[in-house]
C-alpha cells in the first residue's frame, strides 16, 4: 500500500462560482456519474475524492465544492489555500453569474494566495448549456473574457446532459499536474513531512495524556 501511495499524485481542485450555477451537480456528475435532480444549496464547503489515471499517472483529485453565497465566502477562504487548480463556474443562462467571474477570480487570487498569480491554472466553465433558449451567454463573449483575463481556457458543459463534464475536469487536473511539475521538488518534502509530523505529534499526544493525570492528583 505504501509503495502505491508514493506514486500517487494529490491534487487539490477548487470549484468556485455563483450560487446555483451548478457546481455541486457538476462535481457530482464527475465523481459519481449521476445527475442529482434533488440538489441542495451547499453550506460551507464539501469535497470528494476521485482517482483518475492521466498520462499513466494515478492522480487523486481532491475536488472542493464551495458554497456560492456571499456569507460563506469568508469561510471558504481557508479552503482556497494550497489549491493546485481552480475552476470558475458560471451559469450560461444567468448573465449576472457571468459578470461575477471577475470577482470570483480576484477573490481566489487574493485569499488563496498562490505563488504564481499570473499563470495560476484557471478553467472557466460555462454550465447549463442544455438550457438553450437563445438567451445563453455566448461563447464569443466568454472567450473574450477569458482572453482578457490572462488567456484562460473556457469550456462549455452541461451537468444534466453530461456534455464535456469529464473533459472539463481532466483539463483541470492536467493543468494542475503541469503546475505540479514545476513544483516537483516539493513533493518528496511533503511525503517526508508526514512522517516527521507523526513523530512530533506523538509527543504532543503524550503531553496531552499527562495533563489530566496531573489534574487528578490535585
Amino acid at each position, binding site marked *: 500500500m505504501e509503495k502505491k501511495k508514493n506514486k500517487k499524485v494529490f491534487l487539490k481542485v477548487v470549484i468556485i462560482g455563483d*450560487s*446555483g450555477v451548478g457546481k455541486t451537480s457538476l462535481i457530482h456528475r464527475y465523481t*459519481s456519474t449521476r445527475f442529482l*435532480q*434533488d*440538489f*441542495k*444549496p*451547499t*453550506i*460551507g*464547503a*464539501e*469535497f*470528494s*475524492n476521485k482517482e483518475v489515471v492521466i498520462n499513466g499517472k494515478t492522480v487523486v483529485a*481532491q475536488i472542493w465544492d464551495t*458554497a456560492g*453565497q*456571499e*456569507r*460563506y465566502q*469568508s*469561510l471558504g477562504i481557508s479552503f482556497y489555500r494550497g489549491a493546485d487548480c481552480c475552476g470558475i463556474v458560471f451559469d450560461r443562462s444567468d448573465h449576472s453569474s457571468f459578470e461575477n467571474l471577475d470577482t470570483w477570480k480576484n477573490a481566489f487570487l487574493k485569499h488563496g494566495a498562490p505563488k504564481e498569480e499570473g499563470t495560476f491554472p484557471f478553467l472557466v466553465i460555462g454550465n447549463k448549456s442544455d438550457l438553450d433558449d437563445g438567451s445563453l451567454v455566448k461563447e464569443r463573449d466568454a472567450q473574450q473574457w477569458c482572453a482578457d483575463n490572462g488567456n484562460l481556457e473556457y469550456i462549455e458543459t452541461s451537468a444534466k446532459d453530461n456534455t464535456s463534464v469529464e473533459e472539463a475536469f481532466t483539463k483541470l487536473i492536467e493543468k494542475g499536474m503541469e503546475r505540479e511539475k514545476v513544483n516537483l521538488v516539493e513533493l518528496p518534502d511533503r511525503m517526508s513531512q508526514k512522517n516527521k*509530523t*507523526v513523530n512530533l*505529534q*506523538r509527543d*504532543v*499526544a503524550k503531553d*496531552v*495524556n499527562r495533563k489530566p493525570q496531573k489534574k487528578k492528583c490535585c
Partner: protein
Amino acid sequence: MKENKRFSFGPKYTEFSMNTLDSDKQQRAFEISGDKHPSKKTALAEYKNGINQNVPLRKAVCLTGKKKSGKRKLLSCSVHKKTSNLRKKAKNRPVSPAPVPKNTSVGVEYSSPCQKKENKRKQKLLVNSCLHDRKPKDFNKISQMSNKAESTQFLHPSSQKRSPSFLPNKEELRLTRDRMENHHNFDIQFPITKAKDRLSVEPSFENDTYYAQSVKARGEIIGINSLVSTSTIHNTPHVSMKAKLSQTRESSVGQFSRNKRLCNIASIKDACTSVSSQRHRPQIKRNAPLQKESALVNEVYKSDTSPNKPRISPQISQRTFESGRHMPIHYRRRGPVKIGVNSANSSVFAKNSNNSSKDLSFEFIESDAVAKTTTANRKFPEPIRPTFYSKIKKFIFKDTTKFPCKCSEQDQELDCCSRAGKWVRLIEAKRNQRINQDRYLEEYKLVIDKIHRTEQEDPNISINTACVENFNNDQDQIEKDIERTLVDDKFFGKGKDGQNTLRELLNILARKDTTIGYVQGMNFLAAAFLYHCSKDITLFLLNYLLDDLELSKLYSACSNELMERNNSLKSLIYRCNRKVYNHFENIGLDPQTFALEWMFDLFSHTIPLNFYGKFLDNFLALPSTNSNTGWAYFDGVVVSILLEIRNEILEKDEWDEILVFIKDYTKDKNLSFFSWKINWDKILNQAVTI
C-alpha cells in the same frame, strides 16, 4: 426622451418614479413655495400626530419635466388652489399658447443637501395637509349622483375584460367622445359604490381609457388635481405616480384643443368653465381623517379573520377607498372617483400620450404594474422588481394552516401539532409568559406591517444603495434556494402551499435583521419548522432560535461565534473520547470542517424530517441553566455521531478520508427511506446523556 431615471428612496420597495429630463433639476419637482401656506403648522402637527398614532404617512408627488414647462404652476394649482392665473389665461385665450413668464424660478434655492431634504419634507407635508385637511361636504350628494344608472352603463360598456392590446378601441373612443360632449365632462363620474367594488376586483380596462380621456378633456388643471389627489391618497402603498409634462411651453389647453382627435373645443371650453365656476373652499377639519385612518387600520386587522377574503388584500383596497372620502370634494367631482389606480391605466395613458405627443400626460403606475409596462417595452429600460409586499400579499391573508407532520393530532390552543405546542409552551415557560395564539398571529402581522412600512419609508431616512443591493441579492438567493429546499417533499414541492409560505417566511427573516439578511441554512430550518406548525408560530420559534439561542450571531459575518462553537465542540470531544480528539489533533482536523453545515442549518437537512422533531424537542426546550443549553445538546449530537463511528475514524490516517466518511455516513445518498446508515433515534437519545 433622453433618459429615465428611477429613484427609490431607501430600501427598494418604494418607487417614486420620476421622469427626468433634467437630472440636475429634479428637485424642482418638489418646489412649492410652502412658506405662505396657511396650514403649514397644522400640517406639521398632523404629521407628528400621524407618527404618534402609527399611521403611516407616505406619499409623494413627483412632477418632472423640462425647465419652465410649468411644473410648479401646476403643482401650486393643485396644492394651493391658486389656479386663478392659469384659469384666466385659459378662459381668455383657450387656443393660443400662453406665454410662460421668464422668471418663474424657484421660491427656494437648494444650496445644501440638508435643505433639499427639508424642502422635500415640506412639500410632502403640504400636499398631505392639503388633501387631508378638508372634509368633503356633500359626500352623499355625489354618491347619489353617481348612482344614477346612466353613468354606470356607459362606464362599463362591455364586461370588464382586459383587451389584449393596450390601445382603446375606435368605437370606445367615439363613444366616450360623444359622451363627453353630451355630459360636458362634469356630470360624468364613477359611481362610488361601483368604484368600491371594482377596487377589490380586477382592474378594468375600459374605465381606464375613459378616465384617461376625461382627464384630458378637462384640461390640465383638473388633471393635475385629480392626479395629485389620487396619488397621494393615504396608504395607497403601491401607487407610485409619474407625471410627465410636455416639453413645450405652450399652454396645454391650447395644445389640447388642437388635438382634435380626442375631443372638440366645445368640450374643452365646458371643461374650463366648469373649472372656474367651482370655487369653493372646503372646510378644514384637523385630525379627523387621521383618526379615521387609525381606526381603519384596526378595522382592517380585525377584518382579516373574516372568512371571505378578497384576493387583493383588504388592507389596500379598503384603505384606498376609504381615504377617498376625505378627499376634498371638488377633487372628487372632477377626477372621477377612481381611487385605487389600476395597472392598466398606465399603459393606456402612455399610449394616449404618445399619440398626442404635445399633451400633458400623466401616468399612474402601480408598482406591481410597473414591471408589466416595462415588459411592454415602454418608458422603462430596466425591469423593476416587484416589492416584497406585493409578492406576498396574496398569501398573507390566505391561511395555510395545514402542516404535514405526523406527530399526532393538532394542538388544542395553538395552530400547530401537539409537539410544536410543547415547544412553544416550554419557551413561554422560560420567559414566564402564557401562550396565546392570537398574540403570535398579531406579532406576525406586525412584522409584516413593519416591513411593509419600511418599504414605503420616508425618503428622508436613507438612500442606502448598499442596503438595496443586499435586499436584491437576498431575494434572488431566496428564489434560488426555495427551488432546492426539500423539493421531494409533498408539502414543499414545486408550486405547493409549503413553498409559498416558505418564501414568505424567508423574506421576512431576510428583512428582520438587515445586518444578517438571508443566510443559506435558514431555508432548511424554516422548512423544518413549517413541517410542524403554522407560519406565525414558526416565526415565533425561529425568533427564539435566532435571538435567544444566538443563532443570529452565527449567521452574522462579523462575530467569532463560529470559533466559539468550534471550541466548545472540541472540548466536548476531548471530554468524551480522548482518542478521537488526539487523532483529530494529529491529523490537524478541526471539527468545524465537518460540523459547519450542521451548525448553520442545525441538522435540519441532515436529520430526516420525521426524526428532526426529536432533535428540536431537546434543542429548544432542555431545561436551561445558561442560555446555551440548546447548543450543548447540539454538541452532544455531533459527539454521539463521532462516537458511533469512532473505530472507523481511528483507522483512517488522512483527514480527507475521514471527512468523506462522515459525510457519507450522515447523508443518505440514495434518498430512499431505508438507506440511512445512521440510526438517528439512537444518536439523538445518546446525545441527551452526553
